[in-house]
């Protein structure tokens, strides 16, 4: 029995870190622009398809296609911000919530139109197989994804805390008017954060495509869970999203193993609701 516990803990951590990677991008967009990006799941799907096509058409292994995914999704994120999201920023909050829903339906069905709704899976790439560490089987692609998640979080953390643009993003996050007064071009910061947010989730997609199946509707559940992870961690806080992601991953596997697999996601949502009730601004939010 004990090795199963270790196995569940390990896998909980691995899937949790994947949730963190997805959530970091979302929390950045949400924190800076106070917009819930309901199309985040679809961005993930686009990242997966990008790495899939790069592999099947040009034979680039997903690990090497990550930088390309980052750049492509960054540009896409900036474009989406400039032509769609920026128009809604001044509108009522309801319109901000709804515009990204429209976007998610549009992107998902664009994928259905171009790439048919069929299921795809990357054949075993450079990273494949499992490590056996004392009875606990760790799948190498998942471990790689978790490493990627840790690296991305650390980079984001230092980028925001140390670099000039990072501080500008944090300033915009805390108080938009004050940031404007300080001479920060908040429009540029918005498109930059949207770009980085989309790029990060694109990278998450690239990692995910190494071990998960790809089809246009894959973003749905991952997106919903990412919202809870971000709200649990507290808006705009990278560390909050990172920790909350791990918590959700562990809650899911342990809850599923010890309680009942079909209530797995109910447990995740329940933990989220309880935390929000006690601390409305989330674990690390202000």
């Amino acid at each position, binding site marked *: 029995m004990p090795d199963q516990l270790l196995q569940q803990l390990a896998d909980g951590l691995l899937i949790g870190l994947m949730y963190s990677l997805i959530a970091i991008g979302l929390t950045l967009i*949400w924190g800076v622009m*106070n917009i*819930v990006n309901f199309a985040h799941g679809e961005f993930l799907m686009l990242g997966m398809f990008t790495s899939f096509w790069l592999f099947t058409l040009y034979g680039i292994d997903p690990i090497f296609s990550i930088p390309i995914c980052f750049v492509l999704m960054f540009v896409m994120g900036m474009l989406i911000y400039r032509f*769609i999201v920026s*128009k*809604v920023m001044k*509108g*009522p*909050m*309801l*319109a*901000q*919530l*709804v*515009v990204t*829903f*429209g*976007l*998610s*339906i*549009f*992107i*998902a*069905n*664009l994928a*259905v*139109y171009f790439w048919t*709704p069929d299921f795809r899976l990357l054949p075993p790439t450079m990273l494949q197989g499992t490590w056996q560490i004392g009875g606990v089987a760790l799948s190498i692609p998942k471990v790689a994804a978790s490493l990627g998640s840790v690296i991305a979080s650390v980079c984001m953390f230092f980028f925001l805390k140390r670099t000039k643009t990072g501080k500008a993003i944090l300033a915009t996050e805390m108080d938009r008017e004050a940031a404007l007064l300080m001479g920060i071009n908040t429009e540029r910061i918005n498109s930059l954060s949207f770009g980085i947010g989309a790029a990060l989730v694109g990278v998450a997609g690239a990692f995910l495509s190494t071990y998960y199946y790809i089809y*246009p509707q894959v973003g749905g559940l991952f997106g*919903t869970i990412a*919202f*809870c992870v971000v*709200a649990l961690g507290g*808006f705009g806080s990278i560390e909050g999203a990172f920790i909350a992601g791990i918590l959700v991953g562990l809650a899911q596997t342990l809850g599923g193993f010890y309680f*009942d697999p*079909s*209530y797995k*996601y*109910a447990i995740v*949502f*329940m933990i*989220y*609701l309880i935390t*929000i*009730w006690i601390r*409305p601004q989330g674990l690390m939010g202000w």
Partner: protein
Amino acid sequence: MRDFTIPKIIAGFAILLLLIVFPMVVSHSFHIHVMILVFMFAMLGVAWNIMGGYAGMFSFGQAAFFGIGAYTSSYLSIAYGVNPWIGLVAGGCAAALVAAAIGYPCSNLRGHYFAIASIAFAEIVRIVFNNWKMVGAAEGLSLPMQNESFANFLFNSSKLPYYYIMLAFLLVSLAVCYFIATSKMGYYFRAIRESHKIAEVLGVDVVWYRLMAIMISAFLSAMAGTFYAQYILYIDPGSVMLLAMSIQIVLISMLGGAGSIMGPVIGAAILVPASEYTRITLGFKGTGMDMLIYGLLITLISMYYPEGVWKLFSRIGRKLR
């Protein structure tokens, strides 16, 4: 809030007359089916509007109340032979209770936080019903084909009775919304929407009024749920409690004009036929073209008409006057 001037009342009755005549004239039962869906989603939109439009509580979990209404009345009529009309009220109360259970802890959440909390809550309800053996878990419940009568709320020879019942339900919810909008509660809801601080300073018991908003909204949504169960005669969590349905309800209210009485009705009149007919004309090729247009439509509208179509009319109306 005296925006109901004389010409508007006449226009209202003219439309009502047209709606009553419509089913007798158009023979294809499919168009009647679409109109029934329009009425149902309009009612759900109006119910959402009481909570989202007026009180500023953007709920993305309306389908949970809809589903609870459908399940309560169906289960009561299958297991205990309770008449669906009583089941209707029971469903409403059950949904209102659940709404209070979730409304109270989230009473201080606002904006996005409330929206995400409502999604989480609705997903929990769906998962619980999906695994609850007593109510048929994932297999859902199918209502027996009893003899057709108004008392049993069941008609299988023609859709006309369903059409008029749903129209009546919609008028009831519009009346409730009108009464609330022009009453003390309406003012207090709009104060709460602006900010809890202002409402509290004016002596508004914010927690109590937010609970009232979510409970009334849940009751009306549950009524629509019971109608759906009696109309389709088969319900399962996958068809009555999906996040996609909650989102469609929000879109309808927003597209029509949240915060106005007729907004959701206009939204439903545009969105529901659009999605039904595009599905027929473009759906069967399997290219997802109809959903593509649907998504594009939503994005463009929230970009260019964020306050909704109804506010557009009233603004034009105000300019003409």
